[in-house]
């Protein structure tokens, strides 16, 4: 089966510094993949490039073989921090915005997710805690029927119990052919649901392995990751 995401020889510069260099990555349909790397390694940058927000890069990025930015955005759902809305905006208004501007936004699915995460529609953004806001962002991201979901540190403000619940909901509601790329620091909790792991180190893709391969070597994902970064230190 053809690849969902293909990145070839990607290099990205900003402020006269190289942020990402010679990135080559292929992701297939239907996988849950973790994007791991230190803070500042370029994970967010990579996701933004894939989503079409970061521009002026060298190399090729294609989704289902299509490179055009507008077409890629149509099938990619990126966890947006909702910065485009005033803090006084009510959740209901945000839902209307998404419904109106995104063809593939499924309002019923959102209602289910909303109930599941206990989000109050009448709250304003400014009235929500960090955790609630992140739950809203996840609900909005997954209410779109996309082929590639990009989640950039979606769990940082959410407590452990809620995290488990949300992860189950992701598994339950993910379409079979859709791929999820998550960058997060809480490797442990998402480890059991990962198909593959991509590690970003030294401005490039250090490795891309399936999780079962790692476990067959009797290593946990966390150990595997720590080993990678441990090597550089001594």
């Amino acid at each position, binding site marked *: 089966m053809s690849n969902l995401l293909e990145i070839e020889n990607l290099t990205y510069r*900003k*402020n*006269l*510094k190289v942020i990402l260099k010679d990135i080559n990555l292929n992701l297939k349909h239907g996988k849950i993949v973790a994007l791991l790397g230190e803070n500042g390694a370029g994970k*967010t940058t990579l996701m*933004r490039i894939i*989503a*079409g*927000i*970061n*521009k*002026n890069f060298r190399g090729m990025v294609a989704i289902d073989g299509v490179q055009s*930015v*507008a*077409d890629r*955005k*149509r099938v990619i759902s*990126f966890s*947006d*921090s*909702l*910065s*485009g*809305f005033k803090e006084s905006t009510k959740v209901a208004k945000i839902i209307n*915005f998404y419904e*109106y*501007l*995104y*063809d593939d936004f499924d309002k019923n699915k959102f209602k289910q997710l909303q109930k599941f995460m206990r989000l109050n529609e009448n709250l304003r953004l400014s009235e929500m805690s960090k955790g609630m806001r992140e739950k809203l962002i996840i609900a909005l991201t997954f209410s779109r029927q996309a082929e590639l979901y990009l989640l*950039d540190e979606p769990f940082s403000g959410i407590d452990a119990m809620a995290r488990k619940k949300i992860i189950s909901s992701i598994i339950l509601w993910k379409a079979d052919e859709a791929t999820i790329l998550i960058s997060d620091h809480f490797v442990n909790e998402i480890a059991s649901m990962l198909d593959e792991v991509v590690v970003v180190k030294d401005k490039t893709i250090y490795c891309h392995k399936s999780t079962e391969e790692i476990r067959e070597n009797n290593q946990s994902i966390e150990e595997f990751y720590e080993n990678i970064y441990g090597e550089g230190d001594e």
Partner: protein
Amino acid sequence: MSLFNCCFTELFKLKTKKLNTLMLFQILTSMAITFFSLYKFENNHFIRNTYVNDFNFITNWMTSFFFLVLAFGFIAVCLIAIFAQRVNRSQTWRLIPMSSTNLYLDNTLSSFVSIVYLGILDVIGLLLLFGMSVLTDSRFKKNVITGFSSPSNAMSQLFNERAFKIWGSILLLILITLFVFFVVDFLNFSSRAILEFLPTTSGQAFLRVIFIIVIVVACWVAFSANNFLASLIAFPIDFVFSSVLGIFGGYREYNDRYVNFGISLIIMLVFDIFLLIANTLIFNYFFEAREKK
């Protein structure tokens, strides 16, 4: 509805909401100005200053409202231009599955149409006030009737030689409004693009201000050096305002300036097209949304 239209509608709604609030301020301010110019506080109650004029409150209100149209129009353009920058910089808007060009066009168009909307509100307001004045102020009513019946006054001339100037002035106003939006976009886009190209230094905001000042000063120098250009740009603005305001006062014609007027229209159009293309290119390839949080 196509995505382009949906996006336009959404942006338009947001901008007109702001302008509605602004209009409210305009109404209140004009009322306040009228009140305080007509009345003074003496002996613990308000006395009418009769030496200002003999027209009633509503007529005076209409006049101050009319003069505020320009001031608030300018404020509106500034407000909308600044809000448009927020949209340009926002990840939420740039994730929408449309090309950057289309988003920029939607943003600019909705800015422009919202100003037109404000203009329409102004016209409605003025007509309402005009109607109320005529109904309530007998003296004003008399003036209006004499004004309309007299054959050699501005109103009949309006439909003759003035036709060209009116439409030309409107066109020029449109081009100037667009020009302001484009210039603000351009300053924002180019300064940010340059800042993201250069190595990071502390005080980026400071550098941006410096950059904008440099550009503005450079333009000023270019304009002063080029008198012809300067007078062409300054002239149409002056011309439009004196010509439009002059309808009620009866202004002399500027016969020889038809040619200059046409030239200034073309120059403004060229500027607008140039900036539109430049902004679209920078927006497509260099101007990125702010990273979250």
